[in-house]
């Protein structure tokens, strides 16, 4: 085997080692609320806003609301940061963060609002039926 092949194999090995460790470091699993409560690291949960009793203080950049997942379980979520302007219309919320002290501390919120793509998919489904 010549030097070139050894060098190349080393490169590939290093590349994949870096890949695997980075992947493990960056991966945020989508979990159910029960699983999220048991996990220490950064996770993603999703659900809908459970009720209208949310606390929204834009000036203090503070948001507190209840999230309900598909199983109907409800979990309080706290978020500190700039609050997305369309929070009130969100149909689905994806929260990335960790479960601490009885509440889900979100670092990032992704909001899904009723979008035309969704409508369209639903309409097509209806047409096909």
């Amino acid at each position: 085997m010549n030097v070139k092949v050894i060098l190349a194999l080393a490169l590939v090995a290093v590349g994949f080692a870096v890949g695997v460790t980075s992947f493990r470091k960056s991966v945020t699993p989508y979990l159910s609320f029960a699983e999220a409560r048991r996990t220490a690291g950064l996770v993603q949960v999703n659900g809908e806003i459970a009720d209208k009793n949310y606390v929204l203080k834009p000036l203090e950049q503070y948001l507190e609301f209840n999230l309900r997942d598909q199983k109907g379980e409800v979990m309080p979520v706290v978020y500190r940061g700039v609050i997305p302007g369309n929070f009130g219309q969100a149909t689905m919320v994806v929260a990335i963060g960790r479960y601490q002290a009885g509440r889900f501390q979100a670092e990032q919120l992704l909001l899904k609002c009723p979008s035309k793509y969704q409508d369209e998919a639903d309409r097509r489904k209806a047409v096909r039926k």
Partner: protein
Amino acid sequence: MNPGQLLAWLAFLASLAAGLAWLAAVAGGRPAAGRIARAAFRAQWLALTAAAAFLWVILFRHDFHYQYVASYSSFAMPAHFIFAAFWGGQEGTFLLWALLTATLGLVLMRLRHRLTETAMAFLNLPLVMLGLVSVMRGPFLTFPPGRMPPDGRGLNPLLQDPWMTIHPPVLFIGFASLAVPFAIAMAAMVKRDWDGWVKVALPWVALSTAVLATGFIMGGVWAYRVLGWGGYWGWDPVENGSLIPWLANVALLHGLLVQRLTGSLRRTNLFLGVTSYVLVLYASFLTRSGVLADFSVHSFANLGLTSFLLSFLFVIMIAGYGLIVFRLGGIPKPLQRVGGFSRESVMWLGQLVLLLMCALITIGMSAPLLTRLFGSPSNVRTSYYNLVNAPLAIIMGLLLGLGPLMRWRSQDPRALLRAALPALVLAVALTLVVVVRGVRDFMPAGVIFAAAFALAANALVAARGFRVGWRHGAAALGHMGVAVLLIGIVASSGYGVAAQVQLPQGEERQALGYSLTYQGRVKEPDGKDHVRIAVNSREGRFEASPALYWSEFNQGYMKKPHVERYLTHDVYISPLEIVDADPAVALLRPGAAPPGAGSVLAVELSTKPFINLVWLGSILMLASTFLIVFRRAQELDAVGTAEGAKTA
């Protein structure tokens, strides 16, 4: 059947006829079959062109009988957005993709070469697939009688931007163009023409490199200046989807150059020719089938195309990789293998780095699918891409600097050291400067060192080359572009400052050495609400006017940042939200009372140091790739004329 649907059927049937006739021509060697195939292919192109023209006609006539017209346009839209509504939805983009592939096929068909007919047979394969989807789920489906809506829904305001008229078609030319190297590589394997395909494929591979890069650079400019992502690249599946075929294609471009001069890398290049196109289809599957719907804001929703996209992918994969496996034993070993200390060895390593980048990005964007196999589906954060690509970028920069300084076949190491010394000295000097100026982490400093080395080495090579003629300097110019781009990326993304600021109307607030005063909202001539912010700083004063308006369509705020440009940096002001001082009235919507004097605007203020290096690097890279397309096309022309003379 409406005229559009009829044309879609005609195109589909013509593609089937052309495919069968080409099979007959290739297998039976009958000139008559070849003539029929050419005629059918031209008919297909005409039908696709007419279908595209008809789609524009119904869009401009606001013919809301058609579901597509009602979904993506409306009476209120200005003409240039109606024009762009053609590719506002999935159905239209498939038609566009088919038309562009067929147009490139017409160009390929003109080449007089013994591979042409076989290559056309393979180029026709994706056209059959695209023709099928245009018929089954194309843009010409109509509403049942009596269900026609009075007005269309209009195009998503996010897409109502001048960039929308040009960016998607350019990207689709890039995607479509990768079918040509694929087809030529397949033809080479069928005809056992292990080296003859290289010269034919080179201009096409260069064209794909140039056009795809143009496409995603345009996307980056759009994201930065209009969409307000705060950056030009977000590692979104849609962006990655245009990057991964490009990386494989750049690896192929370099592999073909090695093969042309040394005869080696035969198998690698055939593999890359197939893989580039497979990656286009894989990316289409990921972003258009809805499998990532939970993970990306930008993916299209599922329109029931999953099985179609999967079968498209599998047909091409089975044909491509199947043929490679079938022919593998028969590919003769080259007279001279890549090896030793030579330019081709460095280029081969460079290919490997490009493919590693490509593989790791593909794994990242496939994370939700891969993790689903083992448990709950998970996504990777964008930090993953930066982590894996930084070390590879360092190796890439070093190879990029060394390669052009080296000789083909054999290089004396001491001579290389002498040649590389000036560039090394410059790179060390620049790295020391940036370390003193505050770059203290290993990875960014390493990327800057490697990129500076590549920049200096290629500047030397380019200067020598351009003195001989533009053909000899073009490649080094592109390498300089990549190096400048790398430095720009590290500087602008890693060393800017950012802060979120709350601006009560009429009051001055300080952040990052800037003083900002929110003055109020105005309706600009574009019909959108803008907020006015007076900014005062060391660089002088300016008035920022980012857009922040309510969109009924999206049920949310649309935002467009303000970018104040300076030579060494940009000041980037991104509006986040506007709230009334009374927290109970959090949202501002049409019909609601306008915000009083007490409203508060939240913005993100950031600086982007040396962002102009990103644009400069991109321009150099694009200029170089288009020069190379021109050069390789000229060479192919010479081949074509020679072959034509031989057959005549």
